[in-house]
């Protein structure tokens, strides 16, 4: 399943880059923005108010957002681990960083405030976009900077922000996704009672904790029966890592 997920991530990265290259060559109007569901989140309040698409957002962004929400309701934040190109880059960096040295566990006192940054960012972005009637945060969006191939609002600061967002991964597993990503924060609002979730069979589990080590979101899977934590992105790394008796399974 890891291979299939890797291929999925690769496909979506290639798809975005393909459109970015076509756009930069002047062969298409579609670029990485066209496929960004967060553009729809940012401008939703404006859309509700005016019934018109503001800024560079169009029906594609809204329909993709609808699809992502349906996916989240069924399979938690599966978008983050299977589709999001920036998530894939973060995962790759986390994996590379993990090969050099183990991540130092951070205390809950440090992690909790860090995790709340993304919710603050989400509120600030939505409110400021509403007030300014424009995608004012686009120059600072790591996704647009990474996959926009130097898009028209990209500036030096954009690359500085992207570099810092990726650098977080060297201190925290999936650092950007877990602490800064405002779209992750938005999806968390719908990631409470999902249809499908991962279950651990206590009868067959030998408590080897391989699943805990495999989880990029550092969820203590071995200490729970029903994995319904908001952080779970259904990457299925835990299921692949489960060494004994297939004790982890998807159920509803």
């Amino acid at each position: 399943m890891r291979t299939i997920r890797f291929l999925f991530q690769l496909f979506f990265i290639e798809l975005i880059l393909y459109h970015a290259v076509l756009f930069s060559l002047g062969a298409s109007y579609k670029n990485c923005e066209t496929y960004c569901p967060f553009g729809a989140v940012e401008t939703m309040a404006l859309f509700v108010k005016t019934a018109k698409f503001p800024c560079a957002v169009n029906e594609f962004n809204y329909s993709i957002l609808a699809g992502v929400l349906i996916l989240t309701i069924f399979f938690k934040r599966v978008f983050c681990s299977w589709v999001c190109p920036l998530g894939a880059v973060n995962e790759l960096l986390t994996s590379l960083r993990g090969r050099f040295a183990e991540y130092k566990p951070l205390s809950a006192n440090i992690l909790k405030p860090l995790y709340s940054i993304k919710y603050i960012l989400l509120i600030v972005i939505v409110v400021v976009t509403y007030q300014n009637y424009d995608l004012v945060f686009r120059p600072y969006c790591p996704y647009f900077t990474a996959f926009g191939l130097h898009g028209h609002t990209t500036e030096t600061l954009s690359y500085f922000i992207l570099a810092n967002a990726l650098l977080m991964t060297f201190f925290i597993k999936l650092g950007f996704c877990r602490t800064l990503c405002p779209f992750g924060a938005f999806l968390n609002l719908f990631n409470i009672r999902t249809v499908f979730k991962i279950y651990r069979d206590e009868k067959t589990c030998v408590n080897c904790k391989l699943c805990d080590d495999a989880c990029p979101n550092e969820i203590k899977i071995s200490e729970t029966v029903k994995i319904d934590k908001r952080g779970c992105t259904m990457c299925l790394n835990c299921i692949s890592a489960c060494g004994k008796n297939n004790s982890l399974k998807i159920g509803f």
Partner: protein
Amino acid sequence: MKPESGVNPIIIPIFIVLIFSACSYFAWFFRMPTYYHANEELIKSATAADYKTAEFEVNGVVCLGTSKTFAKWLDELPGILSIKTYTSNRFAEIGYDASKVSADEMIISIEREVNVDNEKLKPFSVMRYRESQNSDWIVLRTNKKTEVDEL
């Protein structure tokens, strides 16, 4: 469902493919204009023979703001009945009275240069157009990255 009879994880990629395919279809199906403006009085007064709908692919029509500028400039011409823009593919549908205005006049109006802070700016470039939905497309430019200035 109990974990003993779990769901095959392959359901996840299948579900993702189905959902995104459906989304792409619905995005096209429910395509809505970024900007729409119609002059009802002029539409009533136009004869059916003269009422035509021209289609333009215009580089520079990228958002609601640019759509409004585009519409404002076209509205200065006589015989413009309705203006509809679709920013996702930089399209504009212009309802017009063919006895009062021609497509060439519209292009001149769209591609005008404006002075902003002593600088000449050209915000729109027509890539291709057709005078009515039955006529052929006339291609003026092919490179979609044709330079246009931001207002």
